[in-house]
Every structure is written in C-alpha cells, then in structure tokens.
C-alpha cells in the first residue's frame, strides 16, 4: 500500500512537471528560438515526435541547423494554426471516388497560408517540411508548386522556376517525339 501511494505521488509530480512544459523550444540555424505546442509538433512532424518520445528535446532550444529562422517561423505558425483549425476533413467521408484525387485538398486557411509566401520562402518551407517529416505541410506546399505548373508549357514552367534548359536542340526534339502522346492536345 505504502509503495503504491508513493508511486501515485511521484506520478502526480511528473504530470505537473509535464504540464509545465507543454511546449517545445526550437532553435533555427541562425540561433533564433521558437516555441511550439508539444502536442501539435508531435502530431504534425514525425521527426519532432521521435525527438520528443526519445527525450532528445533540449529545454534551451533544440537545434535545427538545417532550417533558417524564416522557415522555422512558418513551420511554427503552421503548427499553431493547425491546432486551432477545425479539421472539417474529419467530417468528410473518406471514400475515394473516381473523380477525386486520392489525396486531401488543402483547406482554405492552408491555401492562404502558402499563398502569402514569397517564392524563396515557399521552397524553404518545402525543405523544412521534408526535413521534419511533416507530411501534411509537405502536401500543402507541393500542392502550391503543382498549381504553379498547371496548364503551362515547358518554356513557361522554366521561366517561373528559373530552370535552366540543359538539353541540346536534338535531345529536346527526341523527347518531344518520344512523349508525343503527352504533348498531344485534346
């Protein structure tokens, strides 16, 4: 009995201690600190979830050397907004019909979230999301990039993304022939 009671008390103190720290502190490559809810971080990022579970979270700021402060700010911003949003998708039946793509469309607020980003900030965020294993954020940012490609010719796409055409004229012609089916307009 005595032992049980002691254990209960210990657990109580631990719970209180945990409640005190329901956020984690992340440190960007340029040394800025950001706080994010522990619950949201664990839910949205497989990498952070792993770090939290494995106890490798540093109270003074977990170093994320690959992520700049602007991108990390966006990551944290996204986590906070996600925690506050109503996941209406949960109310939508998950049946996949033929016409709908087999992935979820971004929600309205997610669209707005990525729409306001500059070109570079968008790609910084894609890389950060990829690095942190944030599947949903990666989906949302990739959706934005795919929309920037939609309905454009290769020339137009190169222009939007500054892609350098390193094909020779002959190679390009070869590709166009090989992929005639894809260049066919219907």
């Amino acid at each position: 009995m005595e032992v049980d009671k002691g254990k209960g008390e210990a657990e109580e103190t631990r719970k209180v201690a945990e409640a005190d720290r329901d956020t984690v502190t992340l440190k960007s490559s340029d040394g800025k600190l950001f706080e994010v809810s522990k619950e949201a971080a664990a839910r949205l990022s497989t990498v952070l979830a792993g770090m939290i579970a494995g106890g490798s979270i540093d109270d003074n700021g977990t170093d994320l050397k690959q992520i700049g402060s602007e991108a990390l700010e966006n990551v944290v911003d996204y986590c906070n907004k996600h925690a506050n949003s109503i996941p209406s998708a949960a109310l939508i039946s998950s049946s996949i019909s033929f016409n709908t793509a087999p992935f979820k469309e971004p929600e309205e607020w997610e669209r707005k979230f990525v729409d306001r980003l500059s070109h570079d900030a968008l790609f910084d965020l894609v890389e950060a999301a990829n690095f942190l294993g944030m599947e949903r954020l990666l989906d949302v940012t990739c959706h934005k990039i795919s929309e920037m490609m939609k309905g454009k010719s290769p020339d137009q796409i190169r222009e939007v993304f500054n892609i350098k055409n390193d094909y020779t004229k002959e190679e390009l012609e070869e590709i166009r022939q090989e992929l005639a089916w894809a260049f066919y307009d219907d």
Partner: protein
Amino acid sequence: METSGGDGEVSGKRAKPSSDNAGGGEEDRVSALPDDVLVLILRRLLTPEAARTSALSRRWRRVWTLLPELRFLYTQDCRQIRAALEAHEASLRCLFVGIRDAAPDSVAAWLPAAAAAARRISGQLVFHNIERGNDAQEEAEERGAFALPCLERATTASLHLGLLGLAVPPAGVFARLTELSLTRVRIHGPGKLGDAVSSPWCPCLRKLTVSDAWGLDNLVIHSDSLRQVKLEDLHGLRQLTIVASALKDLDVTRCFMNNRKQLVASISAPQLVTLVWDDLYDPSFVHLGEMEHLQSLWPFFFLVYGEDSLLHNHACLSLVRRFKTIQSLTLALHYFWEIDDFDYLMEDMTMLPDITFLKLVVSANGHALGASAFHVLRMCSGIRRLMLSFLAPTNVEACILHPAAPEAQLLPRLPDLLSGGHRHGCGHESQEKEGGRAGAHRCGARSAPLNVELLGENWIVPTPTTTSDISRILSSHPGPGRRLSVVGGNSSAAAAMDGWLRSPALDGLQELKFHLEENLLRHCRLASAHHFASTLVVASFGCCVFFPDGDDDDDDDCREKTRKPIESSPRNGTS
C-alpha cells in the same frame, strides 16, 4: 486570425508573393528538391501534364516515370494511354483510366498495354468508360472486348465498361485482389466469371459487385474468402450457385425477375448476416441453406393492389415465412399508378416473423397508404424501432390516421414526412385533397416529435414543391424535433436545408444524418447544424463541410458526437 506575428520585420522579404507568373529568385529551387518531393508535386497533375516536365531539363527527364499513380481522365484518345503505360517505369500503386465513349479500334490499341501495366499494379485499378447514350447497347456489340487482365498484385479493381465486352481468361490468378466491381459489362468466355472469382483464383477476394451485366446465364461461385456479394441486374441469369462459408452480406436484386423460366438458385452461406433478395423467390427454385446468424432481411417488394397470385407477393411472403425471428426487416410496399381494376392484397399477409426493427419502404404513387402500412404494423407488436421511408409523392399521408385510433399510440414513432420522387405533372387534385387532410390531422399530432427523412434519387434534384412542403411542415410544427435524415441533395438543396436546420421545430434534435453528393462538397456549408451540438445523440455526416457558426466549443462538441457509432440503415444511405 491572420498571420500571427512576424509581419513587421520580415515583411520586406515577403513583399514578393509567389504568384504564378512572378519569376522567383535567381536560383532554381525546384530542381534542387529530392525526387520523392518532386513526385509529390507531379502526382497532383494529370499524367500527360506530369510527363511533359521531361522536357524541362535533364534533371526532370525521368522524374514522372516514378509516379506511383497514373491518371487519365476522360480522354478520347486511347493512344495516349498506351504510350504512357509503355514509357512508365515504376511499379504502379494506382491506375485510373477514364475514357469517354471509346471507339473499338482505339480500345484495341491500348488494351494490350493496359494488360501489361495491370500486372504491375500493386493497388487499385479503375477503368471507367462512359458510353454515349442509352441506345449505345447494340453498337457496343461490335466494340472490342476488354480482356480481364491478370491482376497479380492489384488489391482492388473497378471496371465500368460502358457495355464493352469483358473477356474472362480461361485461367489466371488474382492473388491479392480483395475487391472486384464490374459494371455495365457484356461477359464473354472463354473462361467463366464464377471460376475467376472463386477461391482457387481469387483467394483474398472479400467484396464482389457485378451490376448491369449481360451474358451471364450461369454463375457459380465457390469462395472461402468472400464477405460481401452484390449482384444487380444480371440480365438473363438462369442459374446462380454461391457456396461461401464466410459470406456476411448478400444482395441479389432484379436478376431473375425478367427471366422467369428454368431458374435455379442455390445459396450456401451459413454465416450470412444480411440478405437482400429483391427478386423473385420460390422455395422450389431458390434453395437457401441454413442461415442461423441472419439479422437483416429485405425481400422482394409487395404489391398492395394487384392481380391475384402475383409473383411479387408470393416471393415476398414465402421468403419472410422462412424465418421465425428477424432482427431487422425491410418491407417494401408498392402501389401501381392505377389501382381501380385491382384487388386489395394486403389480406394475403397474415403473419410476419418477430421483428425488432421494421423498415417500411412505401412507394404510394399518390394513393392513401394508411391502411396498408397499419396492416403491417398491426402484425408487428414487438417492434422496438420503426422507420418509414416514403418513396412516392410527398403527400403527408403518414398522418392520415385518426388520433383516437389505436394506432395513434404509434404516432410519436412515425416520421412526419418523407420524400423522394415527386410525381411529375399529375395528381394535383389528389395532392390537394391529401394535403388538406393531412393538414387537418396534423393539429392532433403537434406534440409528436418530428421525424423527417429525405431520400431517393429524385431528391438529388429537389423540386420546389418538395422543398416548400418540407419547409411548411417544419415551420408549422412546434413539437420537439427528434430526427432529420437527408440522403442525396445538391447545392440548391443545401440552401433549403440550411433554412430547415434553423427552424425552431428542430430544436432539441437528437438524430441528424446527412449524406450529400460528393462533388458538391464545396457548396454545402451547413453552419446551422452546429446549434444541435448540445442535444445530438446520433449524428452521421457524409460529404458535408461544416463551418463554424458560433464559438469553437460547439464545433468540438459536434465533432465528438460524430465519432459515436451510427446505426446504419440496411439499404438507403450508403451505396
């Protein structure tokens, strides 16, 4: 709730939004992304568009061939598909092919490539051919046949062939297939479909759907894995044998009813839980084995008025008679438009099994249905739950009984109005008459809880009369609301529903069910559903978008409720 902080000092950097045509920085950021991220980008494009990125630069040459899914949506040129399937390299998780009215030669052009690709599919195959019109049937005879490809690794396959032929191979193994759906097909040899879906070939098949099929006169299925079988409109079917030790749900609809000679059906499914036999039935030609676990039964419809010795009623009654107790029985009562020359046949129904949940589906076609419905109800003294679905014109007939009648005690359990098909352009007089009666009676029923159910295909395009009827009832009913169920519906319905949901008649609603058309998601914003959050006990929402109407706490409550188990009705609602 715009951006939280940071706008001040970094705003300079954000000044240039990534709008489509604004060239980015100096760097090529996108080509620097790893392959798996590029695949995530390309899979959101249609397959031809994704393949065109090959021409961007060497970096992009083969990225599209790593796509796990290929999607061709309603193209008219099948050559595209063939070339794409030949050029693609990775294993395929999904292949969606939509073709509009495929011409025979163009189908022939891509079928071999499809069959080759089908072997590589590790997930889902969907092929959907939309035919031109209803008269395309004869023309389709001359079109090529789609050879049922060897799906060695695919897990689900859905083929809607628009009446193209389906050639069943003489042998083949569908080792991982768990779901197969064939719609609008003409089935050919050399093999037999029954063999193809039976255990030796399809050891994992759990769900089989065949609907609107020609060329199946004999279907023999032996399967240890099947859980669910749905056979609908198998034109010309004469013999059906199913031996399925694990089968739980069987649905046979309109397979025998137009083909009344030399029929034999033999079903051995000892684990069966749900049986829909919406078809001819006679113990002399339909042999149903032991079904100890059967809980839910839906027999052929019963004609309330008709000529004596009708096959329908015989089929319905003799199937029901097989069972002493049925937890859930769905009875469909049907009225012809013209009943003057017919006999009243309800007296033929003399007894029903012990029923816990009765679902009465009535298509009254404008006739008063009180007598027939209560003939049934009188025999079901033990029911604990009753659901009435009215598939015919929306006269408020559910209430035409007199409040003093013994049946009146059932009133609180009756739905007030159910609607589906409106009769078009006729019956004004009778509608007015019935409407008047119902209106008069309604006063007596005011304190009854309100049960409103909307279902049926026609509801998807609600007529002004339907919506105004329902609005009228809701606004004239001050009693406590209890249940609202809406299946189908479109954007114009959404506006009306929004109004209904706000009606005081529904205050205190305990049960709310929606299943709207999927592609209309964006239009249906049922904010007003939130105010039921405190009273809702059962909620089921499909394909709706809910937007906050009040504070966030309400939403949380509402979401919480949706997770509670929902009792599903046997037929309508989910397809």
